[in-house]
């Protein structure tokens, strides 16, 4: 990306500082002058929203850790005390618990945005793969965080998920058991397990923050994709990040916060499970163990395969396959806007994922299992069959000459007109 910082130190101190640590120059170059495509729609505001989510989770989480006690005897009560006794604890705790769900809503929209507009295609492969890593670390963090209240769902969720590794016994006898006991620090899930999960739950968000910096760095090297999927070719295709993209991001963020706050203040427990307000009991399995909603599609894939090892492999493969998407998609056109056939398959994928999410919450029997298998099949077929084959046989629609030609009535080439980029028209 060809861009430079227009930073000019305004005082002698700023000049002195800039010669020694040019952090202001870096900030101005990356966050103010950075050229953004002029046609970005609101789906591109989710990067900023996700950055906000991570910061909010870290802030509320640090506060919660001041009041939480990571022991099997005290964990459940300390969470209840946070909700009832700690000043504003109810609000901070709700922000953290609901925040996890909001984080995942945003990340799923962000991922599907990338899939629709081909944001994973060259030269953004590394950017995309770092994104997949972020998603994985996010899932690990959320999983360990959900263990901390030490309710029935916490306990049994940990039991079921850590036991996934015991399927390694089917490859080398005894290895799975050894790994699971190593994770637990005992022969069953216990306070020892809770304690280490707490430690890792505090650590991983900072790993995430590091990965996010790499993600943004990679983004600022290749530049943002946009609804046309075309590269920025002339100055007229781009607008500076501030105020244009920043202002748009702010509008998106505030709309998102409206939804966020609605859940925090009016439906704080709606996205959770009532059983998690029963303290963990190693002798009673809840009649129906379900993970949090954001894991349901993966849980459905796990249960769709009638073999333990097979189910575990399919579940992990469903994420690993995303790493290879940049090479599985053979189309030369990035944006699905100009791919008349792929567009339909994209929505089929969305339906399959939503369907798997619904089925993940249902008992594993009868028609639910059959539909889980159909959707699981499509999920993998989409990446392994549709993407490679469709790219070769599909005739894309003609692409606009440039980004500005796609949004400006004059056909582009002119100077930016007005503050906001013209809305995308279909």
């Amino acid at each position, binding site marked *: 990306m060809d861009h430079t910082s227009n930073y000019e130190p305004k005082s002698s101190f700023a000049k002195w500082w800039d010669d020694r640590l040019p952090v202001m120059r870096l900030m101005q170059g990356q966050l103010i002058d950075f050229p953004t495509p002029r046609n970005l729609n609101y789906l591109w505001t989710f990067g900023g929203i996700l950055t906000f989510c991570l910061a909010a989770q870290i802030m509320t989480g640090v506060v919660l850790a001041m009041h939480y006690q990571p022991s099997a005897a005290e964990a459940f009560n300390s969470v209840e005390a946070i909700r009832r006794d700690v000043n504003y604890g109810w609000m901070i705790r709700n922000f953290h618990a609901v925040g996890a769900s909001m984080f995942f809503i945003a990340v799923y929209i962000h991922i599907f945005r990338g899939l629709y507009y081909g944001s994973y295609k060259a030269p953004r492969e590394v950017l995309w793969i770092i994104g997949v890593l972020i998603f994985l670390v996010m899932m690990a963090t959320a999983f360990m965080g959900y263990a901390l209240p030490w309710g029935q769902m916490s306990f*049994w969720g940990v*039991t*079921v*998920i*850590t*036991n*996934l590794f*015991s*399927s390694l016994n*089917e490859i080398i*006898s005894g290895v799975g058991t050894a790994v699971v*006991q*190593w*994770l*637990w*620090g*005992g*022969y*069953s899930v*216990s306070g*020892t397990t809770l304690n*280490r999960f707490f430690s890792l739950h505090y650590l991983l968000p900072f790993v995430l923050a590091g990965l996010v910096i790499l993600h943004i760095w990679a983004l600022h090297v290749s530049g943002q994709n946009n609804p046309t999927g075309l590269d920025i070719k002339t100055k007229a295709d781009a607008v500076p990040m501030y105020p244009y993209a920043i202002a748009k991001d702010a509008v998106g963020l505030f709309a998102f916060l409206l939804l966020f706050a609605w859940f925090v203040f009016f439906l704080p427990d709606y996205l959770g499970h009532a059983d998690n307000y029963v303290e963990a009991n*190693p*002798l*009673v*399995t809840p*009649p*129906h*163990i379900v993970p949090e909603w954001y894991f349901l599609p993966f849980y459905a894939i796990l*249960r769709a395969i*009638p*073999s*333990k*090892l097979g*189910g575990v492999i399919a579940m992990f493969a469903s994420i690993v396959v995303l790493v290879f998407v940049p090479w599985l998609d053979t189309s030369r056109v990035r944006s699905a806007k100009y791919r008349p056939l792929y567009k339909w398959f994209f929505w089929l994928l969305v339906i399959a994922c939503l369907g798997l999410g619904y089925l993940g919450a249902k*008992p*594993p*029997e009868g028609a639910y299992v059959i539909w889980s298998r159909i959707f699981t099949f499509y999920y993998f077929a989409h990446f392994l069959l549709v993407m490679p084959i469709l790219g070769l046989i599909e005739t894309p629609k003609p692409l606009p000459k440039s980004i500005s030609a796609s949004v400006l009535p004059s056909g582009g080439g002119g100077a930016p007109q007005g503050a906001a980029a013209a809305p995308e028209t279909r």
Partner: protein
Amino acid sequence: MTSEVEDPDRRDFLVIAGNAFVAVGAAVTLWPFVAQMNPDAGAQALASVEIDLSPVKEGQAITAMWRGKPIFIRNRTPEEIKEAEAVAIADLPDQSARNDLLPETTPALDANRVKDGKVNWLILIGICTHLGCIPKGQAMGDSRGDFGGWFCPCHGSHYDTSGRIRKGPAPRNLEVPPYAFVSDTKIKIG
């Protein structure tokens, strides 16, 4: 590129030895950080438990604890025993007896999962071999699944009256813990 191969000299030896030393040192340093997560001696030194079976009447079941795991103890009825003994080995998804005191190749006959002369007592680790839930079937009124044994509600595994997997995703039969009768009505597990 020269086709000539240089003879290893003293410096090559020092470099290889030095790097090997660093690698071994790194592994040795890393090991405590891995091993600290394993069960410690306190968790391993688990006393065995003795359980009195005399209050358990025919058809009843109790759940005991051993190593933090639930132990299913069922006093089986003659019909349940007959049902368990009648199953052909070929019908079983897992054909190993899964008895901790017998080799892994022992066939999953009912006789290999109980003690001689005490065939009414079925003693099992009550953890589903799929993903570690506690199967239903111990309490009165619980669903016992399609085969009259236990039913795991998490992912729908059915166990028969010998605790063998018959249907569902669980890969193995419920495990028989190491135990012995210390008297006619008392067992010692572990």
